[in-house]
């Protein structure tokens, strides 16, 4: 059972890391709009003639 004396502090460290990461994400505005990102996956601009042209030139290179 003495492994717990190592594992639990380790878990707390990871927890601290997760909290820090979340605070950073909130602070940089990633959670301000919770609706648009869900839609973004459904909308892509592949149909854009401009980006098609870009894709072709890239392929030629």
């Amino acid at each position: 059972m003495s492994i717990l004396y190592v594992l639990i502090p380790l878990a707390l460290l990871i927890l601290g890391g997760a909290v820090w990461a979340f605070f950073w994400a909130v602070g940089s505005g990633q959670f301000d709009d919770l609706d648009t990102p869900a839609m973004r996956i459904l909308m892509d601009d592949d149909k854009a003639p401009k980006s098609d042209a870009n894709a072709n030139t890239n392929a030629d290179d």
Partner: protein
Amino acid sequence: MATTDTCFHCALPNPAGCDFTVEIEGRQRVVCCPGCKAVAELIRDSGMSSYYTMRDTPTPGVGKPPDELAEWQAFNNDEMLRAFAEVTGVQAEATLYVGGMYCSACSWLIETSMTNLHGVKSVEVNPMTHRVRIQWDHQQLGLGDLLASLANLGYRPQPLAPNDASRPEIEEQRLALKRLLVASLGMMQVMMFAVGLYAGDFQGIDADMQRFLRLVSFFVATPVVFYAARPFFTSAWRGVIARKPGMDLPVSIAIGSAYTASVYATFTNGPAVWFDSVAMFVFFLTLGRYLEMRARHRSIDRSAALSQLLPNTTTMIVAGEKSVVPVASLKQDDVVLLRAGDSIPADGTIINGSTTVDEALLTGEAKPQARQCGDSVAAGSVNIDGLIEVRVVRTGRDTALGTISRMSERARYARPTFVKLADRIASHIVVALLVIATVVALYWYLTAPEKAFVITLSVLVVTCPCALALATPAAFATAGSRMSQLQLLVTNGDAIEVLSKVTHAVFDKTGTLTLGNPQIESVTVLDNKYSEADCLRIAATLEQASSHPIAFAFRSDRSLARVDHSEVHVAAGISGIIDQQTWRIGKAGFATSDHAAESSDAVYLGVEGHAVARFELRDQLRADVRETIDELRAMGISLSLASGDHEDRVKEVASLLGIRDVSFGCTPAEKLKLIESLQKRGERVVMIGDGINDAPVLAGADTSIAPGHGAKLAQTSADIIMLGDSLQPVATALRLSRCTMRIVRQNLMWAIGYNATALPLAVAGFVPPWLAAIGMSASSLVVVLNALRLSRFT
């Protein structure tokens, strides 16, 4: 998707004979104007047609580009860049307010098209606050170019000065989210350790391991108490100082004492710790507050921000030189030049020229007002026909318009009396609870001292009147935001409660049941020398001098005759000389001498005092009046019609709709008397009428609803304003208000019932602290979730 009757892009009705079409995703779509056509083509050509399939149904007119093009180039200089953006090297960062953004698809459209611009580094769009934050290279791209490309998509952009750009709601929401996360992660961890500790209680546990688990629980629970639960402590302390103990006081006592006792037990090897109960309690409370805050923020709608009512740019004169400048840079004593049709950008005094101005936005007066040199003009009014130079006196928020919009904003934030009452009751309950808890503590201390602390703690937690305090505000906030989605603006928080009790509705006719723009119904030619077409042509010629609603009925595309000495006679009609003959149009007594005795309200056309034609005008009923009236009747509401109009017209409308109680030819004072007599009979009255002319009548009724049209919104004194051309929102508002009060009653019954059951059990010592925390939190969540049902009301 949009039908062919309405514009594919902006959803406004298409004008008759409209032939603008755009091909999108293989089909021809009808749009209402060249502006919408241009926007739709731009969206299609940039490969973003999927915007149209993903967006929510737009409020009609939202995406329609303005008729006049703002001069965005004025923003393309260094001075403007410094005023609106933070510049570091070649990088600039600015926040723009984007009017007309209403759903996630809009934010996608903006983000994608802005990112495609050359020189733009990053774009952050927030549809909730209508703000876009852009980072770009200001040597490749001017601020004006960014604004212009947003305007090309049909939005109404506005750069924001750095102080206007910060949003308290965003800060509040971010902080609440961090607190919620700390509480939830902390709770999960502490619960895990608690499982170990509880298992140890049954199976036996190493003394060292027990101490170790308690110690880590302490480490995790500490940020939960001092960070996540901090708002409860500060608000409780504020309540104590103000001698108005709120529901946060018992919450704070419970959290504080359980935490202190657990810390003490941890370091002295006491019998038990309650870190798990503390963390769980804080988590559920924070979750309830977070949900309530989201509902509240959604109901804040500042899309009609003051700046949107003013033009973006104006022409300034400095030492005889004209230059186009952004309105935001105007200062006192600047001189601006305004052409016919320009909006006036600031309060000021005319120093050159004379004109007539439309001040409908400020005073509600639809008639244009004459203004000469030396007179003052107000921001937000429109310069109709003259060329004037104005010396600026006040700008921005100091103008009369700014004051009005600040006042209406404050009204929207005020808490309804009903909610205040609930708060007062909650504070009495808090005092009672503290007394009960003390009595319980004393009793158990005398009979079984080892149980006294645990039981008192459970009593404090289980009886927390959070659900009681959340019951009403949560429902009202949700109802308010649902109403604005349903085309109803609530300007007075009390309106929802009063509306739910209404038994009688009084309607005005003109502008309420009808659209308020009369049309010519029939033409009777009285002099055979003239044809009907001649009469209409002459009438249109004369009426072009007037801007009275009746005059609009005569507007036509026909070529007009030449008219000299055209003159408007107030409350009578218009005269003018056509082909050396004096023509008059207006009331019978004014236009003719042979029909002078007739008092009908038809419009007469006469030449040299001799009657030529009679025009019957009629106001169109709103499209869904009958359905709405029937629905109201089905709800058990009695109806009256009170109008200032003539007897036959009013009776005709009344019989069409089956309204029996009819008054006609009423002055506002008589309408008020009618409402008072209804109130004396014990009826609760809602007045549905034009908010501008009937202000005292609207104020006299228990509550009021007014149809609103863009510019007049700020002036309307009604409690609820309905947007759009339909009358249906009246019935919706009534149903929604009744539903809201039903939910409030359910919530209150639930909260009271829960507390009444839980209290005796806790006092008797049957409820351990962790169960108390679950019970109390669950009852708060039930209340909030029940209120959120209103956001799906249809």
